[in-house]
Protein backbone atom coordinates (compact mmCIF):
# COMPACT_ATOMS: atom_id res chain seq x y z
CA UNK A 1 0.00 0.00 0.00
CA UNK A 2 1.15 3.59 -0.75
CA UNK A 3 4.14 2.05 -2.53
CA UNK A 4 4.59 5.13 -4.74
CA UNK A 5 5.39 7.31 -1.71
CA UNK A 6 9.05 7.79 -0.91
CA UNK A 7 10.15 7.20 2.61
CA UNK A 8 11.94 10.05 4.47
CA UNK A 9 15.63 9.61 5.23
CA UNK A 10 16.27 8.92 8.89
CA UNK A 11 19.50 9.96 10.62
CA UNK A 12 20.14 8.61 14.09
CA UNK A 13 23.21 10.35 15.56
CA UNK A 14 24.58 8.89 18.79
CA UNK A 15 26.17 12.04 20.16
CA UNK A 16 26.08 15.80 19.66
CA UNK A 17 29.24 15.77 17.53
CA UNK A 18 27.70 13.48 14.94
CA UNK A 19 24.47 15.50 15.17
CA UNK A 20 26.48 18.63 14.30
CA UNK A 21 28.12 16.86 11.36
CA UNK A 22 24.73 15.85 9.98
CA UNK A 23 23.31 19.37 10.34
CA UNK A 24 26.38 20.87 8.68
CA UNK A 25 25.96 18.44 5.80
CA UNK A 26 22.46 19.77 5.08
CA UNK A 27 23.05 23.52 5.14
CA UNK A 28 20.54 24.20 2.34
CA UNK A 29 17.70 22.08 3.65
CA UNK A 30 16.50 22.29 7.23
CA UNK A 31 16.43 18.79 8.73
CA UNK A 32 13.32 17.82 10.64
CA UNK A 33 14.13 17.16 14.31
CA UNK A 34 12.29 14.19 15.83
CA UNK A 35 12.04 13.90 19.63
CA UNK A 36 9.32 11.60 21.08
CA UNK A 37 7.01 12.09 18.08
CA UNK A 38 3.86 12.18 20.24
CA UNK A 39 2.54 15.43 18.77
CA UNK A 40 3.60 14.81 15.18
CA UNK A 41 2.15 11.33 15.03
CA UNK A 42 -1.17 12.27 16.60
CA UNK A 43 -1.99 14.49 13.61
CA UNK A 44 -4.84 12.88 11.73
CA UNK A 45 -3.18 13.17 8.33
CA UNK A 46 0.29 12.13 9.49
CA UNK A 47 0.41 9.01 7.34
CA UNK A 48 0.41 8.51 4.42
CA UNK A 49 2.05 11.76 3.24
CA UNK A 50 4.80 12.38 0.74
CA UNK A 51 7.88 13.15 2.81
CA UNK A 52 10.36 11.71 0.36
CA UNK A 53 12.55 14.82 0.37
CA UNK A 54 12.54 15.14 4.15
CA UNK A 55 15.71 14.55 6.17
CA UNK A 56 14.61 13.43 9.63
CA UNK A 57 17.11 13.59 12.48
CA UNK A 58 15.93 11.35 15.29
CA UNK A 59 17.27 12.59 18.62
CA UNK A 60 16.46 9.37 20.48
CA UNK A 61 20.00 7.97 20.54
CA UNK A 62 21.91 11.15 21.40
CA UNK A 63 23.30 10.27 24.79
CA UNK A 64 23.88 13.83 26.00
CA UNK A 65 20.18 14.60 25.61
CA UNK A 66 19.25 11.89 28.11
CA UNK A 67 21.37 13.21 31.00
CA UNK A 68 20.11 14.89 34.06
CA UNK A 69 21.95 16.70 36.76
CA UNK A 70 20.96 18.20 40.07
CA UNK A 71 22.63 20.46 42.61
CA UNK A 72 21.38 22.66 45.46
CA UNK A 73 20.15 25.42 43.19
CA UNK A 74 18.78 23.81 40.07
CA UNK A 75 17.95 20.63 38.19
CA UNK A 76 19.04 20.30 34.57
CA UNK A 77 17.41 17.87 32.16
CA UNK A 78 18.44 16.82 28.68
CA UNK A 79 15.72 17.50 26.09
CA UNK A 80 15.06 13.79 25.50
CA UNK A 81 14.28 12.94 29.12
CA UNK A 82 10.66 11.72 29.26
CA UNK A 83 8.48 13.92 31.46
CA UNK A 84 7.46 10.89 33.51
CA UNK A 85 11.12 10.36 34.49
CA UNK A 86 11.34 14.02 35.56
CA UNK A 87 8.37 13.57 37.88
CA UNK A 88 9.87 10.36 39.30
CA UNK A 89 13.39 11.71 39.73
CA UNK A 90 12.37 15.09 41.09
CA UNK A 91 9.55 13.98 43.39
CA UNK A 92 11.22 15.39 46.49
CA UNK A 93 12.95 18.49 45.16
CA UNK A 94 11.13 19.99 42.20
CA UNK A 95 8.38 22.58 42.79
CA UNK A 96 5.09 20.83 43.51
CA UNK A 97 3.32 22.78 40.78
CA UNK A 98 5.63 21.22 38.18
CA UNK A 99 4.88 17.72 39.42
CA UNK A 100 1.14 18.50 39.36
CA UNK A 101 1.45 19.74 35.80
CA UNK A 102 3.34 16.66 34.66
CA UNK A 103 0.97 14.28 36.43
CA UNK A 104 -2.02 15.95 34.79
CA UNK A 105 -0.50 15.47 31.34
CA UNK A 106 -2.02 12.42 29.63
CA UNK A 107 -1.50 9.04 31.33
CA UNK A 108 1.74 7.41 32.49
CA UNK A 109 1.91 5.23 29.35
CA UNK A 110 1.88 8.34 27.16
CA UNK A 111 4.05 10.39 29.57
CA UNK A 112 6.79 7.80 29.17
CA UNK A 113 7.00 8.81 25.51
CA UNK A 114 6.58 12.59 25.84
CA UNK A 115 9.98 14.27 26.11
CA UNK A 116 10.49 17.60 27.89
CA UNK A 117 12.15 19.14 24.81
CA UNK A 118 9.37 17.98 22.54
CA UNK A 119 6.64 19.33 24.78
CA UNK A 120 8.26 22.80 24.77
CA UNK A 121 8.51 22.85 20.97
CA UNK A 122 5.01 21.81 19.94
CA UNK A 123 3.61 23.65 16.94
CA UNK A 124 -0.05 22.61 16.76
CA UNK A 125 -0.97 23.41 20.37
CA UNK A 126 0.55 24.85 23.54
CA UNK A 127 1.19 22.59 26.49
CA UNK A 128 0.55 23.40 30.14
CA UNK A 129 4.07 22.21 30.90
CA UNK A 130 5.64 25.06 28.94
CA UNK A 131 3.51 27.64 30.75
CA UNK A 132 4.27 26.21 34.19
CA UNK A 133 7.99 26.21 33.38
CA UNK A 134 7.69 29.83 32.30
CA UNK A 135 6.37 31.02 35.65
CA UNK A 136 9.09 28.97 37.35
CA UNK A 137 11.68 30.94 35.38
CA UNK A 138 13.10 27.90 33.64
CA UNK A 139 15.94 28.39 31.17
CA UNK A 140 16.71 26.42 28.01
CA UNK A 141 19.89 25.80 26.07
CA UNK A 142 19.60 26.20 22.31
CA UNK A 143 22.13 24.87 19.81
CA UNK A 144 22.06 26.44 16.39
CA UNK A 145 24.23 26.57 13.31
CA UNK A 146 25.78 29.91 12.34
CA UNK A 147 28.96 29.12 10.42
CA UNK A 148 29.72 26.81 13.31
CA UNK A 149 27.55 25.28 16.03
CA UNK A 150 26.72 27.73 18.83
CA UNK A 151 25.01 27.08 22.12
CA UNK A 152 23.34 29.68 24.29
CA UNK A 153 21.08 29.77 27.34
CA UNK A 154 17.76 31.65 27.14
CA UNK A 155 14.95 32.30 29.60
CA UNK A 156 12.11 30.03 28.45
CA UNK A 157 9.77 33.01 28.05
CA UNK A 158 12.16 34.44 25.44
CA UNK A 159 11.76 31.58 23.01
CA UNK A 160 8.03 32.33 22.57
CA UNK A 161 6.34 35.45 21.25
CA UNK A 162 3.67 37.16 23.37
CA UNK A 163 1.01 34.69 22.23
CA UNK A 164 3.13 31.63 22.82
CA UNK A 165 4.28 30.92 19.26
CA UNK A 166 7.71 29.31 19.16
CA UNK A 167 10.36 31.76 17.97
CA UNK A 168 13.70 30.01 17.70
CA UNK A 169 16.14 30.04 14.77
CA UNK A 170 15.18 27.54 12.07
CA UNK A 171 16.81 24.18 12.68
CA UNK A 172 17.84 25.10 16.25
CA UNK A 173 17.98 22.27 18.76
CA UNK A 174 16.64 22.76 22.28
CA UNK A 175 19.15 20.61 24.13
CA UNK A 176 18.71 21.26 27.89
CA UNK A 177 16.17 22.62 30.32
CA UNK A 178 17.21 24.12 33.67
CA UNK A 179 14.69 24.42 36.48
CA UNK A 180 15.42 26.34 39.68
CA UNK A 181 14.85 24.35 42.86
CA UNK A 182 12.68 26.58 44.99
CA UNK A 183 9.34 26.15 46.69
CA UNK A 184 6.65 28.80 47.00
CA UNK A 185 4.15 29.35 49.84
CA UNK A 186 1.31 28.79 47.47
CA UNK A 187 1.27 26.78 44.23
CA UNK A 188 -1.84 26.05 42.23
CA UNK A 189 -2.31 24.24 38.94
CA UNK A 190 -5.53 23.10 37.30
CA UNK A 191 -6.21 21.92 33.77
CA UNK A 192 -9.48 21.10 32.08
CA UNK A 193 -10.07 19.26 28.82
CA UNK A 194 -7.72 17.36 26.55
CA UNK A 195 -5.32 19.63 24.61
CA UNK A 196 -4.58 16.92 22.03
CA UNK A 197 -8.05 15.74 21.07
CA UNK A 198 -9.96 18.96 21.83
CA UNK A 199 -7.61 21.97 21.94
CA UNK A 200 -10.44 24.47 21.45
CA UNK A 201 -12.14 23.34 24.67
CA UNK A 202 -9.10 22.79 26.89
CA UNK A 203 -7.44 25.33 29.15
CA UNK A 204 -5.24 25.52 32.24
CA UNK A 205 -4.05 27.95 34.87
CA UNK A 206 -0.91 27.99 37.00
CA UNK A 207 -0.08 30.29 39.90
CA UNK A 208 2.86 30.54 42.29
CA UNK A 209 2.81 33.02 45.13
CA UNK A 210 4.52 34.11 48.33
CA UNK A 211 2.12 34.91 51.11
CA UNK A 212 2.35 37.40 53.95
CA UNK A 213 0.07 37.70 56.90
CA UNK A 214 -2.61 39.75 55.21
CA UNK A 215 -1.84 39.53 51.55
CA UNK A 216 0.14 38.21 48.61
CA UNK A 217 3.61 39.70 48.32
CA UNK A 218 4.72 38.05 45.10
CA UNK A 219 2.74 36.21 42.43
CA UNK A 220 3.12 34.86 38.94
CA UNK A 221 0.09 33.65 37.05
CA UNK A 222 -0.34 32.19 33.58
CA UNK A 223 -3.34 31.02 31.59
CA UNK A 224 -2.96 28.53 28.73
CA UNK A 225 -5.41 28.04 25.91
CA UNK A 226 -3.78 25.21 23.89
CA UNK A 227 -5.18 26.34 20.52
CA UNK A 228 -4.46 30.04 21.08
CA UNK A 229 -1.41 30.45 23.28
CA UNK A 230 -0.43 31.78 26.69
CA UNK A 231 -1.68 34.76 28.61
CA UNK A 232 1.18 35.86 30.84
CA UNK A 233 1.92 39.42 31.82
CA UNK A 234 3.49 41.47 34.61
CA UNK A 235 0.27 43.46 34.87
CA UNK A 236 -1.69 40.36 35.88
CA UNK A 237 1.08 39.34 38.30
CA UNK A 238 0.96 42.76 39.95
CA UNK A 239 -2.81 42.62 40.21
CA UNK A 240 -2.64 39.31 42.07
CA UNK A 241 0.36 40.47 44.14
CA UNK A 242 -1.63 43.37 45.54
CA UNK A 243 -4.49 41.22 46.80
CA UNK A 244 -5.56 41.33 50.44
CA UNK A 245 -6.41 37.97 51.91
CA UNK A 246 -8.96 36.53 52.31
CA UNK A 247 -10.35 37.86 49.02
CA UNK A 248 -13.83 39.34 49.49
CA UNK A 249 -16.70 38.50 47.13
CA UNK A 250 -16.75 41.97 45.60
CA UNK A 251 -12.98 41.98 45.06
CA UNK A 252 -13.24 38.51 43.54
CA UNK A 253 -15.90 39.45 41.00
CA UNK A 254 -13.96 42.59 40.00
CA UNK A 255 -10.82 40.53 39.61
CA UNK A 256 -12.54 37.83 37.56
CA UNK A 257 -14.03 40.41 35.17
CA UNK A 258 -10.65 42.08 34.78
CA UNK A 259 -8.81 38.81 34.11
CA UNK A 260 -11.35 37.58 31.54
CA UNK A 261 -11.32 40.95 29.81
CA UNK A 262 -7.54 40.92 29.81
CA UNK A 263 -7.40 37.47 28.19
CA UNK A 264 -9.89 38.53 25.50
CA UNK A 265 -7.97 41.72 24.71
CA UNK A 266 -4.46 40.34 24.84
CA UNK A 267 -4.80 36.82 23.52
CA UNK A 268 -8.01 36.20 21.60
CA UNK A 269 -11.60 35.39 22.34
CA UNK A 270 -11.68 32.04 24.16
CA UNK A 271 -14.36 29.57 23.12
CA UNK A 272 -17.49 29.49 25.31
CA UNK A 273 -16.30 26.23 26.92
CA UNK A 274 -12.82 27.63 27.59
CA UNK A 275 -14.31 30.77 29.12
CA UNK A 276 -16.59 28.78 31.42
CA UNK A 277 -13.72 26.50 32.42
CA UNK A 278 -11.32 29.40 33.04
CA UNK A 279 -13.87 31.11 35.28
CA UNK A 280 -14.41 27.86 37.18
CA UNK A 281 -10.68 27.26 37.67
CA UNK A 282 -10.10 30.86 38.75
CA UNK A 283 -12.99 30.66 41.21
CA UNK A 284 -11.60 27.41 42.68
CA UNK A 285 -8.17 28.99 43.04
CA UNK A 286 -9.51 32.01 44.97
CA UNK A 287 -11.58 29.68 47.18
CA UNK A 288 -8.54 27.51 47.81
CA UNK A 289 -6.23 30.41 48.68
CA UNK A 290 -8.89 31.86 51.01
CA UNK A 291 -9.24 28.51 52.78
CA UNK A 292 -5.51 28.24 53.16
CA UNK A 293 -5.15 31.73 54.63
CA UNK A 294 -8.09 31.27 56.99
CA UNK A 295 -6.60 28.00 58.23
CA UNK A 296 -3.23 29.68 58.84
CA UNK A 297 -4.69 32.62 60.71
CA UNK A 298 -7.07 30.37 62.66
Amino acid at each position, binding site marked *: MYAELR*SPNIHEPENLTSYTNIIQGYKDTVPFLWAGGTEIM*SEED*FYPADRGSLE*VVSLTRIEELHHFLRNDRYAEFGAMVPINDIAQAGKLVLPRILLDTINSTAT*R*TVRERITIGGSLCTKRFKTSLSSTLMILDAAVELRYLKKRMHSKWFQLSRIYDKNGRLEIPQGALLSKVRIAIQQYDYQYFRAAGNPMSDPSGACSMALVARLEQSGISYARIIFTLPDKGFCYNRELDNLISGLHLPVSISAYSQLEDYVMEYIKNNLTQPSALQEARLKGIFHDMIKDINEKVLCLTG
Partner: protein
Amino acid sequence: MRIELTVDGKYLALSVSSDKPLNLLLQEDLETRSLTDCCNCAHCGKCIVLLDGKAVLSCLVPSFEVRGRNVVTFDGFSKTRDYRDIEKAYSSMQAWPCDGCYAARTLLIESIVRRYESGSSDLDEEEVLQEAMLVSCPCMDYDSFLKVVKESLMNRRKRKNVRRA
Protein backbone atom coordinates in the same frame (compact mmCIF):
# COMPACT_ATOMS: atom_id res chain seq x y z
CA MET B 1 13.62 1.31 4.72
CA ARG B 2 14.61 -2.13 5.95
CA ILE B 3 13.81 -2.87 9.57
CA GLU B 4 14.42 -5.94 11.64
CA LEU B 5 12.30 -6.58 14.69
CA THR B 6 10.74 -9.34 16.75
CA VAL B 7 6.95 -9.60 16.74
CA ASP B 8 5.36 -12.13 19.08
CA GLY B 9 8.61 -14.05 19.30
CA LYS B 10 9.18 -14.19 15.53
CA TYR B 11 12.24 -12.46 14.10
CA LEU B 12 11.23 -10.49 11.00
CA ALA B 13 12.96 -8.34 8.39
CA LEU B 14 10.62 -5.96 6.58
CA SER B 15 10.91 -3.25 3.99
CA VAL B 16 8.55 -0.40 4.95
CA SER B 17 8.28 3.38 4.86
CA SER B 18 10.37 4.75 7.73
CA ASP B 19 7.55 6.98 9.03
CA LYS B 20 4.83 4.34 8.89
CA PRO B 21 3.12 4.03 12.29
CA LEU B 22 3.62 0.70 14.04
CA ASN B 23 -0.13 -0.02 14.16
CA LEU B 24 -0.35 0.20 10.35
CA LEU B 25 2.76 -1.91 9.98
CA LEU B 26 1.17 -4.58 12.17
CA GLN B 27 -2.22 -4.34 10.45
CA GLU B 28 -1.17 -4.10 6.82
CA ASP B 29 2.16 -5.84 6.59
CA LEU B 30 1.69 -8.50 9.27
CA GLU B 31 -2.13 -8.78 9.31
CA THR B 32 -2.37 -8.73 13.09
CA ARG B 33 -5.99 -9.61 13.91
CA SER B 34 -6.23 -7.86 17.29
CA LEU B 35 -5.56 -4.39 15.83
CA THR B 36 -8.38 -4.09 13.34
CA ASP B 37 -10.63 -1.75 15.33
CA CYS B 38 -8.41 1.25 16.11
CA CYS B 39 -8.97 4.77 14.82
CA ASN B 40 -5.31 5.44 13.82
CA CYS B 41 -4.98 8.82 15.52
CA ALA B 42 -4.09 8.45 19.22
CA HIS B 43 -7.51 9.06 20.65
CA CYS B 44 -9.17 5.65 21.00
CA GLY B 45 -6.43 3.73 22.82
CA LYS B 46 -7.30 0.47 21.07
CA CYS B 47 -3.93 0.08 19.36
CA ILE B 48 -1.95 -0.74 22.50
CA VAL B 49 0.93 -3.22 22.09
CA LEU B 50 3.86 -4.07 24.35
CA LEU B 51 7.15 -2.59 23.13
CA ASP B 52 10.05 -4.11 25.07
CA GLY B 53 7.53 -5.06 27.77
CA LYS B 54 5.93 -1.64 28.15
CA ALA B 55 2.52 -0.63 26.82
CA VAL B 56 2.61 1.94 24.01
CA LEU B 57 0.01 3.38 21.68
CA SER B 58 1.34 1.82 18.49
CA CYS B 59 -0.07 4.68 16.39
CA LEU B 60 2.45 7.00 18.09
CA VAL B 61 5.49 4.84 17.30
CA PRO B 62 7.14 5.24 13.88
CA SER B 63 8.63 2.20 12.14
CA PHE B 64 12.20 3.51 12.34
CA GLU B 65 11.97 3.44 16.13
CA VAL B 66 11.14 -0.27 16.38
CA ARG B 67 14.34 -1.46 14.70
CA GLY B 68 15.82 -4.25 16.77
CA ARG B 69 13.04 -4.11 19.35
CA ASN B 70 10.58 -6.63 20.69
CA VAL B 71 6.88 -6.12 19.95
CA VAL B 72 4.18 -8.22 21.59
CA THR B 73 0.61 -7.96 20.29
CA PHE B 74 -2.45 -9.44 21.95
CA ASP B 75 -2.34 -12.32 19.42
CA GLY B 76 0.99 -13.41 20.87
CA PHE B 77 0.33 -12.41 24.46
CA SER B 78 -2.90 -14.44 24.67
CA LYS B 79 -0.82 -17.61 24.37
CA THR B 80 1.30 -16.90 27.44
CA ARG B 81 0.87 -17.85 31.10
CA ASP B 82 0.92 -14.16 32.05
CA TYR B 83 -2.34 -13.74 30.16
CA ARG B 84 -4.00 -16.36 32.39
CA ASP B 85 -3.43 -14.14 35.46
CA ILE B 86 -5.43 -11.35 33.86
CA GLU B 87 -8.08 -13.67 32.42
CA LYS B 88 -8.61 -15.17 35.88
CA ALA B 89 -8.93 -11.66 37.35
CA TYR B 90 -11.61 -10.72 34.80
CA SER B 91 -13.57 -13.78 35.68
CA SER B 92 -13.24 -13.50 39.46
CA MET B 93 -14.23 -9.81 39.38
CA GLN B 94 -17.04 -10.55 36.90
CA ALA B 95 -15.88 -7.60 34.82
CA TRP B 96 -15.15 -8.21 31.16
CA PRO B 97 -14.24 -5.57 28.60
CA CYS B 98 -16.13 -5.64 25.29
CA ASP B 99 -14.64 -7.41 22.25
CA GLY B 100 -13.57 -4.05 20.75
CA CYS B 101 -11.20 -3.08 23.57
CA TYR B 102 -10.43 -6.46 25.18
CA ALA B 103 -6.98 -6.71 23.59
CA ALA B 104 -5.95 -3.13 24.43
CA ARG B 105 -7.16 -3.25 28.02
CA THR B 106 -5.51 -6.60 28.66
CA LEU B 107 -2.12 -5.38 27.39
CA LEU B 108 -2.50 -2.17 29.41
CA ILE B 109 -3.22 -4.21 32.56
CA GLU B 110 -0.21 -6.42 31.80
CA SER B 111 2.03 -3.35 31.54
CA ILE B 112 0.77 -2.01 34.90
CA VAL B 113 1.19 -5.45 36.54
CA ARG B 114 4.81 -5.66 35.28
CA ARG B 115 5.57 -2.26 36.85
CA TYR B 116 4.50 -3.47 40.28
CA GLU B 117 4.95 -7.25 40.28
CA SER B 118 8.34 -7.14 41.98
CA GLY B 119 6.62 -5.89 45.12
CA SER B 120 9.12 -3.09 45.70
CA SER B 121 6.47 -0.36 45.60
CA ASP B 122 2.77 -0.04 46.42
CA LEU B 123 0.21 0.15 43.65
CA ASP B 124 -0.54 3.80 42.91
CA GLU B 125 -4.33 3.75 42.57
CA GLU B 126 -4.54 7.27 41.21
CA GLU B 127 -2.09 6.36 38.46
CA VAL B 128 -4.08 3.22 37.59
CA LEU B 129 -7.33 5.19 37.37
CA GLN B 130 -5.62 7.68 35.09
CA GLU B 131 -4.30 4.81 32.94
CA ALA B 132 -7.88 3.48 32.63
CA MET B 133 -8.74 6.64 30.69
CA LEU B 134 -6.28 5.72 27.96
CA VAL B 135 -8.80 3.33 26.40
CA SER B 136 -11.76 5.50 25.51
CA CYS B 137 -14.28 2.63 25.26
CA PRO B 138 -17.01 3.05 27.94
CA CYS B 139 -17.65 -0.68 28.42
CA MET B 140 -15.76 -0.96 31.73
CA ASP B 141 -15.97 1.50 34.61
CA TYR B 142 -12.82 2.77 36.31
CA ASP B 143 -13.60 1.05 39.59
CA SER B 144 -13.87 -2.38 37.91
CA PHE B 145 -10.65 -1.68 36.01
CA LEU B 146 -8.86 -0.94 39.27
CA LYS B 147 -10.23 -4.13 40.86
CA VAL B 148 -9.09 -6.22 37.88
CA VAL B 149 -5.60 -4.68 38.05
CA LYS B 150 -5.33 -5.45 41.79
CA GLU B 151 -6.57 -9.01 41.31
CA SER B 152 -4.21 -9.60 38.34
CA LEU B 153 -1.31 -8.28 40.38
CA MET B 154 -2.20 -10.60 43.22
CA ASN B 155 -2.45 -13.58 40.85
CA ARG B 156 0.93 -12.73 39.34
CA ARG B 157 2.70 -12.34 42.68
CA LYS B 158 1.15 -15.57 43.92
CA ARG B 159 2.25 -17.48 40.83
CA LYS B 160 5.76 -16.08 40.97
CA ASN B 161 6.00 -16.38 44.76
CA VAL B 162 6.84 -12.71 45.26
CA ARG B 163 7.03 -11.85 48.94
CA ARG B 164 6.35 -8.21 49.77
CA ALA B 165 8.67 -6.34 52.07
